């Protein structure tokens, strides 16, 4: 890897063979990308936690229905 990250820019308005440029990212671009990635990671963790909580709540409900005497198939049918 090079010291400074680079981006590949392909200018399609130019003739073939002259289109590709390899350009170093500016400090502002690096900062923006890093901030966006951190934000996305925070969101991903929150989404996964919310999905896990929803799955746990659903399972707890199923368990209670089964404890009341329903079969698993009957309990699942009620939740669909």
């Amino acid at each position, binding site marked *: 890897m090079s010291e400074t*990250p*680079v981006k590949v820019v*392909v200018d399609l308005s*130019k003739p073939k063979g002259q289109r590709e440029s390899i350009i170093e990212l500016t400090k502002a671009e690096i900062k923006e990308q*890093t901030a966006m990635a951190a934000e*996305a990671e925070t969101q991903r963790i929150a989404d996964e936690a919310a999905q896990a909580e929803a799955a746990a709540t659903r399972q707890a409900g199923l368990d209670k229905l089964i404890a009341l005497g329903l079969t698993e198939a009957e309990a699942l049918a009620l939740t669909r």
Partner: protein
Amino acid sequence: MTMTLIETITVGSGGAASIEFTGIPQDGKDLLVLLSARANTVQALWMQLNGSNSDFSGLRLTGTGSSVIATTETVQVGFINRSSSTANTFGNAAIYISNYASSTAKSISTDSVNENNDTSALQNINATIWDNTAAITSLLVEPQSGASYPFLEHTTASLYTIS
């Protein structure tokens, strides 16, 4: 229908934080990007249109190999391979953008996989809208944190117009 290859780019030995097509010709109806990619550490694939990461909203459905995830997304349009994936393999993504030169919101559909010889291998579909009326003149794809975790060498991106 005519599918025209506009350009194919292969990332060189230094890697690349992103691949951007600019000056996209406006004579097509739809755009298709085919990506064969591997990134360092991260596997989420992001997109920008006309230099913007705003106005995106979408839905994602992912099979992980052991579970299913359905969630909302913005700029994330798929998954690619990362450095922990099976050696020398690359993920694939196809990004289809309808009516890219129009003055209406753009609909984007993506399917992607990350190839991995393990239980955990993602299969993914995204439905995204770019709620912007500007004609698309540039398109950028990047790993989630390309500045830190760039596309690796041999990653390729091809841009097609469909007319």
